[in-house]
């Protein structure tokens, strides 16, 4: 009797328990209790996207702990130390320029994603995010630079007249390097106005040099991987920067300490007549609270270089997952969430970025068409042209080390006027040594 009751109880129990368990599982969110340590790029426009994270936490039950929000340079140093000291890091911000160097520590995302997951990304950005056949990051937005110039200066009849009298041709946003030099010189009236500004410090200096190098018909390496940036195109590119900074003094003198934030700030403060910058500053620049040039600037294509064309350096920001993560599914889900079409559209609207999502880009275009703002239209048109032909930096793990060997040498020409050939030969020798190891 007791035994029978026991058996009945057992049967009932074994029937009920699985049901109640599965009912509980449906209640339970997929990543309940998971904590993800994230190391993100911080600063102004980048952080808008992170306001969407509570939505992810709500949907999945995971908790995202943003352990650091730093500029990309600071971020890379932090992330490298976290990787090297083992574990405790799940999701990072990275960039097509930096990800190849970090590849040993990044989870191949293609093992977790289906082609369906990737079909909304522009194929070229997926291609740029793939190293040795492994997709190591999901792109967020793409950066290519365009020219920003001050319409109140360029369209002022007195300025136009004075310019023509001095240089013998009409004032306009420069279309080639000679005009670039002339216009920069013309508008330089320190301490309240300078013709031009460029990123003269650290990695951004090498980026600027790289861009000019491409437009002069050169590159860092030839197809066999030989170092060639010290040849004639490289010399022309560096000479342009030396002329602008050292000889004509057409930029603020602090330029060797300027990185991305500082150049954009100088333009927003109304100190600069024209310069090149990323799409991401656009919204801030149009905001009269943040910018003295709101409503007073226009956009133009890059001037062509000695090679007869303008080639632009570009890359995509993105998110990656650390190989050491204990919760790869949750981490990949977060990266997927952050790069979803809806969220990238949100980011593009809020920050002025160029989304890597096809659907987000389409929506952005429709919005612009609807409002009909000529500057917005012009911007998308220019960016689209450049997206078709931009060049990413070499996908080699040593890139960061190469950059940090080159920039102090380039500065030597900038601040002391050292002969560009001497500088580039020294830099090239250093790079050969790094690659030869």
């Amino acid at each position: 009797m007791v035994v029978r009751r026991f058996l009945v109880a057992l049967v009932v129990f074994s029937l009920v328990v699985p049901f109640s368990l599965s009912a509980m599982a449906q209640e339970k969110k997929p990543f309940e209790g998971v904590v993800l340590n994230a190391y993100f790029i911080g600063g102004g426009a980048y952080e808008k996207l992170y306001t969407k994270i509570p939505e992810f936490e709500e949907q999945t039950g995971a908790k995202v702990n943003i352990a650091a929000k730093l500029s990309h340079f600071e971020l890379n140093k932090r992330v490298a130390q976290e990787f090297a000291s083992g574990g405790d890091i799940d999701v990072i911000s990275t960039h097509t320029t930096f990800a190849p160097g970090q590849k040993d520590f990044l989870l191949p995302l293609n093992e977790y994603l289906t082609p369906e997951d990737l079909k909304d990304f522009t194929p070229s950005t997926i291609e740029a995010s793939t190293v040795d056949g492994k997709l190591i990051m999901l792109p967020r937005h793409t950066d290519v630079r365009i020219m920003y110039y001050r319409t109140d200066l360029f369209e002022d009849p007195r300025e136009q007249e004075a310019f023509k009298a001095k240089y013998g041709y009409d004032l306009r946003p420069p279309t080639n390097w000679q005009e670039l030099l002339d216009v920069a010189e013309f508008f330089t009236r320190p301490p309240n106005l300078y013709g031009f500004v460029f990123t003269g410090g650290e990695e951004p200096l090498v980026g600027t040099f790289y861009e000019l190098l491409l437009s002069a018909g050169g590159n860092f390496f030839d197809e066999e991987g030989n170092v060639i940036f010290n040849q004639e195109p490289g010399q022309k590119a560096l000479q342009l920067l030396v002329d602008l900074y050292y000889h004509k003094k057409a930029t603020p003198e602090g330029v060797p300490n300027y990185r991305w934030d500082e150049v954009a700030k100088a333009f927003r403060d109304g100190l600069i007549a024209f310069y090149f910058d990323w799409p991401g500053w656009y919204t801030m620049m149009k905001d009269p609270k943040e910018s003295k040039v709101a409503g007073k600037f226009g956009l133009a294509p890059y001037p062509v270089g000695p090679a007869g064309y303008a080639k632009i350096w570009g890359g995509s920001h993105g998110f990656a997952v650390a190989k050491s993560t204990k919760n790869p599914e949750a981490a990949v889900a977060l990266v997927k969430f952050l790069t979803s079409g809806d969220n990238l559209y949100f980011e593009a609207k809020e920050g002025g970025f160029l989304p890597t999502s096809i659907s987000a880009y389409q929506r952005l275009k429709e919005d612009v068409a609807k409002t009909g703002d000529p500057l917005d239209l012009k911007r998308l048109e220019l960016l689209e042209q450049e997206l078709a032909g931009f060049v990413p930096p070499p996908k080699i793990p040593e890139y960061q080390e190469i950059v940090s060997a080159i920039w102090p040498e380039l500065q030597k020409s900038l601040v002391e006027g050292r002969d560009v050939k001497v500088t580039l030969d020294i830099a090239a020798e250093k790079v050969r040594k790094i690659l030869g190891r």
Partner: protein
Amino acid sequence: MRTHSERYFPYVLILPSVIGTFLLIVFPLVYSFFLSLTSFHLLKAQSLRFVGFQNFWEVLHDPAFWVALKNSLLFMVVVVNVELVLGLLVALLLNRASGGQGILRTLFMIPMMFPPILVGLQFRWFFNDQFGLLNNILLSLGIIDRPIGWLVRTKTAMPAVMFADIWQNTPFTAVVFLAGLLSLPVEPLEAALVDGASPWQRFRYVILPMLRPLIFIAMTIRSLDAGRKAFDLIMLMTGGGPAYATEILGTYTFRRAIVDYQFAYGAAISFIDMVLTVGFAVYLYRQLLKGRT
């Protein structure tokens, strides 16, 4: 006479410090030293290969290392000496002040209480070419007609970071000398007064010799930590630039170990740095012991 437990008394007193130091300072240091003998790279998973002293050998053949060493020496010699002289002056002045000693002393010690990172930020702003106060003053007085990039010219960048360092650390040497002045025995001074010595003679022949040991101590301390303390400052003001002009061993180590991810190489530089600093300080300390006996 001494009991068994008494013989162990001093060891009991130092034991906690020794254990703590071993766990949190010596052990990590040995670990770093071990890494400096490998090819350890922060972003290469398979880079922990033993290479012996190869990194050290490479450092000694690295021109950038010698530039940084030269800058470090120049930096240390200049700031330490200026801080000693200014510190002595300020201490003598404060020692003479009759009223408000407490407030005055507190005020002049403020720079040494600044977090170095804040000193860096402040002086980066002060010397900034566009928004800096220095250029602002010079321009408004009509002394210059175009802003000067103090931190980006090879000739002015080093003096600018030295200025910031001297500003922060002069109070330290001053407070050490003030402590010395306050604890000087009065008899020799009174004797000198009776002999009719002038203020200068009293300073030169009575006060200065008695302060001598403290001068060596202040010098030893500042030489030992000048490089370490200047690091935050230089990183924020110039990042070692322009073109290596303010690159000291500390910033170069950081560049190689963390920015370039070559941790092993950077560790090798920092150990060479440490050996040099320690050697210099031991020499100073020997002088100090001579002065003490």
